[in-house]
């Protein structure tokens, strides 16, 4: 048994394995329970089938501070549909029989806290979740209270950086991370922006030149082939959220392949 603080090659997490592949990573975010309560697993199957590299399963929250209108509305709708933490775990119970790509749960900290952080992490391990992104769980609190629990259940915790994050803090976050760094492309909530300008290009180059130990995956503002290509010129991959939710709103879950083909 490897110790709780050691990750050797044998126990390598699916995220870490994926990041070692010689390709750009396309990660897709969707809100669990949207557009319909039972769409969670079919969406994941379609994403895998069409060559997506990683999936971020959004655990809906009533007050999603970091999200713009698109993801907010999908969260509100998912909650109205009846989505809740235990139900999501039930839907994902045998997901690893069908889905082999890395899976991340993304959500806000309060629902995790109410479920019980350890119970939540344990359940994630049983199901085969590889990591968590909890934007409002700060680095300090994570390290003081929760890091040993995450490690005990083999979960990676991904932190965010933004164009305003100072170099010293980026290095701290890099030290604390073992998967990828979620690089927010712009000072904004999700879905706020179309296309990248000079400030983003400068920021992408600045981060690329820092020589961080963790690869970076860019999120926020990626919606099509052009922005995906621009975001991944230096970074290892990119995450699409709001644009995919919009697609689900407009087209349902039947034409997920069409959406992915327009990205790459």
């Amino acid at each position, binding site marked *: 048994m490897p110790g709780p603080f050691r990750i050797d090659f044998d126990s390598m997490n699916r995220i870490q394995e994926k990041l070692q592949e010689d390709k750009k990573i396309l990660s897709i975010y969707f809100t669990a329970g949207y557009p319909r309560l039972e769409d969670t697993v079919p969406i994941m199957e379609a994403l895998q089938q069409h060559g997506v590299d990683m999936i971020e399963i959004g655990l809906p*929250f*009533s*007050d*999603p*501070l*970091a999200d*713009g*209108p698109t993801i*907010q*509305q999908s969260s*509100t709708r998912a*909650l109205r549909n009846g989505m*809740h*933490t*235990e139900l999501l775990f039930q839907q994902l119970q045998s997901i690893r029989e069908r889905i082999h790509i890395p899976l991340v749960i993304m959500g*806000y*900290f*309060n*629902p*995790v*806290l*109410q*479920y019980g952080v350890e119970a939540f992490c344990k359940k994630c391990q049983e199901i085969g979740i590889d990591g968590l992104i909890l*934007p*409002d*769980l*700060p680095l*300090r*609190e994570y390290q003081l209270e929760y890091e040993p629990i995450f490690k005990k259940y083999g979960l990676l915790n991904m*932190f*965010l*950086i*933004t164009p*305003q*994050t*100072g170099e010293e*803090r980026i290095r701290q976050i890099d030290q604390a991370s073992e998967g990828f760094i979620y690089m*927010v492309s712009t*000072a*904004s*909530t999700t879905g*706020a922006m179309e296309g990248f300008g000079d400030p983003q290009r400068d920021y992408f180059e600045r981060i690329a030149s820092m020589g961080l130990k963790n690869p970076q995956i860019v999120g926020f503002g990626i919606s099509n082939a052009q922005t995906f290509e621009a975001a991944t010129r230096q970074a290892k991959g990119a995450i699409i959220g709001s644009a995919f939710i919009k697609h689900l709103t407009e087209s349902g879950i039947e034409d997920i392949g069409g959406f992915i083909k327009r990205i790459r």
Partner: protein
Amino acid sequence: MSYHVDEHGYYGEFGGAFIPEMLYPNTEEIRMNYRQILEDPSFQKEFRQLLKDYVGRPTPLYHAARLSEKYNTKIYLKREDLCHTGAHKVNNTIGQILLAKRLGKKRIIAETGAGQHGVATATVCALMGMPCVVYMGEVDIARQAPNVARMKMLGAEVRPAMSGSRTLKDATNEAIRDWINNPVDTHYIIGSVVGPHPYPDMVARFQSVISEEIKTQLEEKEGKRLPDYVVACVGGGSNAAGAYYHFLDREEVGIIAVEAAGKGIDSGESAATSALGKVGIIHGSKTLLMQTADGQITEPYSISAGLDYPGVGPLHAHLFRSGRGEFISITDEAAMQAGLEVSKLEGIIPAIETSHAFAIFKQRAFRPEDIVVVNLSGRGDKDLQTYIEFFNL
């Protein structure tokens, strides 16, 4: 035990800064600078001068003789209702806008529920000539038309919060989102002792002028600086934090916090967070909050728009959990009757928030020799329509 914030922003187990990384530089800039700015003599001079000449401080500490006689104890009222704009809220907005100027900020945003904090923010923005955007739930905009008009007259832009339940908590979410999108030039004036560290401490410090004055005024009137009890209503808890502040470490002063029970604690329509809340995260702070078993934040209810917040400031969660504070909840009905009684006995129409604090005299006995200070946090003009409808006036 300490009742003040520690170096990491905690009151006991409550507080902290549970914020997405996008907000880290914003709050960090304030955290790194606020103590130094507040302690700077030139800041204090300007702050004190404005409190005196513009707000009208010190506000009187008034011996309410008829109310005292009725309840057979000695009741003093701290008259925050006489502040410019009609409530204590302006103590904080004056402080924060001076801080924003010293941080070089060019634009102010705020959230508001009933509109009192929005008006207090719009007022100081007019005073300083700064652009001001106030987020207000669409539902609240419809039911608080006079305050919306006041903000507009003062030059503020009122933006409706259309998400979620379209009330105070959603207005707060929208203000936070604005701040995420405008991280460099904008200062967010939070209206209560809530939000990520250092806001609860900073707002409490600005409001602490209330208890500072109570001490001095009580000495003049009673020859002693400490009352037996300080009573205040608590929504987020800024007037209460200010009224308690200089008495927190004096255990001989009883601290009484009055929450809104709405239609009753068990009615499903209540805002009594200490009774109904569990530990969780709201608006960047770990505190007691009303939520589902699944951790979704629920919508509170009170007849008073200023008390229907699903959380409570982390200081108050700590006062409750540690037993330092006595928490009492008061129904709509009891509060409204108390408001009417104070109007008739003392010639003062209180804000419905404050009426909750007055209702404790029917619920809880004090000794004849006790000195009980009630923080009269705001005046009732804004609530006239609610009083009219309730009493068929």
